[in-house]
């Protein structure tokens, strides 16, 4: 029989969905700003693998000549990004949700196994837990990236008043490069995230909107027969008994 199992608390779902438009608009206004000095590329010497960005890219999305507007949007939305991120971290810390999210010493090995499984190179699936090792690493890393974006952003915003921070991050120009690289990181995260959500299916996606998953449970023993992902954190299911 099917039962309803709670997965994501309401607060986490709010933080998650609020972050989506905020980060999207931060990225978009960031492109308007970056256009004014678009010096980064992927390559070495005179070989360029990827130019950030070709003129056609700016033209296609009308990203050019919007520096002032971009800075204004960026410096308004930064408050939303900062507050949403701070509240999320505070909430996970106080509610105990951090137990599911922070990697353990087994997460790294597990992340490798999960990745191999997802690439079709390993038969055994991820462990039965709310977040597997790969997820723990990814969701923790993306928060650290957020911290990095705020710090590199501040280092560029106030390079004299926060000169110690700017120096710590390698100087004004390095802070800008790091800020850009982190944004590329969000885009890569987003691509993998969407692919995994599609793979994981409707039950998993609905949990991020409605908060619950449906489980197949043996009515006699109440053992989960299929798809449990909302179990307490731990390294292996057997330890959770």
């Amino acid at each position, binding site marked *: 029989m099917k039962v309803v199992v709670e997965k994501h608390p309401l607060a986490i779902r709010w933080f998650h969905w609020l972050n989506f438009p905020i980060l999207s608009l931060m990225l978009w206004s960031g492109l308007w700003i970056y256009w004014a000095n678009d010096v980064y590329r992927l390559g070495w010497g005179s070989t360029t693998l990827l130019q950030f960005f070709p003129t056609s890219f700016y033209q296609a999305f009308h990203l050019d000549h919007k520096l002032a507007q971009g800075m204004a949007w960026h410096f308004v939305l930064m408050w939303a990004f900062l507050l949403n991120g701070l509240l999320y971290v505070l909430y996970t810390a106080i509610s105990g949700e951090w137990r599911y999210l922070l990697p353990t010493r087994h997460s790294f090995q597990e992340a490798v196994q999960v990745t191999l499984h997802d690439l079709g190179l390993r038969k055994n699936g991820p462990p039965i837990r709310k977040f597997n090792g790969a997820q723990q690493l990814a969701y923790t890393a993306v928060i650290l990236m957020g911290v990095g974006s705020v710090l590199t952003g501040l280092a560029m915003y106030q390079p004299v008043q926060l000169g110690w921070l700017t120096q710590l991050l390698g100087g004004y120009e390095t802070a800008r490069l790091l800020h850009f690289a982190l944004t590329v990181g969000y885009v890569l995260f987003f691509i993998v995230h969407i692919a995994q959500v599609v793979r994981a299916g409707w039950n998993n996606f609905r949990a991020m909107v409605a908060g619950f998953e449906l489980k197949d449970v043996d009515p006699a023993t109440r053992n989960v027969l*299929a798809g449990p992902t909302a179990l307490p954190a731990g390294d292996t299911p057997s330890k959770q008994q």
Partner: protein
Amino acid sequence: MTNETPPAPPAVNVAVPAPASEAAALQAATKRSRRSFIGLGLAGLAGLAGWRYLLHTPEADGLPVGLRNVLDFNAQLTQAYSKHTRLAPEFTKGHARRLRANGDVGLGNEFDPATWQLTVQGYAAPGAPARTQHVTLADVKALPRTEMTTEFKCIEGWSVVVTWAGVRLTDFLARYPLATASGQPILNPAAPPADVARYASFVTPDEAYYVGLEQETVLHPQTLLCYELNGQPLPLEHGAPLRLVTPLKYGIKHLKRIGTIAFTDTRPADYWAERGYDWYAGH
């Protein structure tokens, strides 16, 4: 996000009460799910409407006033937590590089550097007679020379270390005490007298380019009236005979070819702030 069925169902007990009826539970779940999706959709629409509202507030200097107010708030916040005497990092002269000439607004051709004079409009209380003084380049160069190698930061996102030389604005004001209403000199820029003008305005001779600085930046020890760049006399495209240099601000505030400096109580017009940029534009 890999939450698929494992190969063999493990014997894990879920601590949930068995529902009285599976059908009833599923019906309740469907209802809850629908409510959540509608809620998310409505929240999204509300967010979109709010953002559109903000962007359609009346225009204030090239920006919706809603955004402009946040920029001004950010400036007030950074001003409040800033140490106004903090210095921009200085480098050895060997780090200096060529400076790109990036803007020519205010640098019209009808200009004769030989006959140029700096006009300074002293700070006068409302109703008091104007105090205007004309100063030649030789007068400026007779004042103590200050040299500094600092990072010039363009609002476009590039930066370059350059060596500037000129006169500290505070040194200039020590000789020409025009920033105070009473005409008293500013003995200690860190603790200025009460009657110092809150702002200074800088305008090119053709009045095409203009910037405003607040008192803290006017009195900052690294704010220069500059006549040398990288050891050479300032070239025309970089603002000869005299330009403003203030490494606590973006390049847009480093006005080239100063025609008039005016000390005032009201926030002066600023060329780029009128075109959607932050008036403060400080570091």
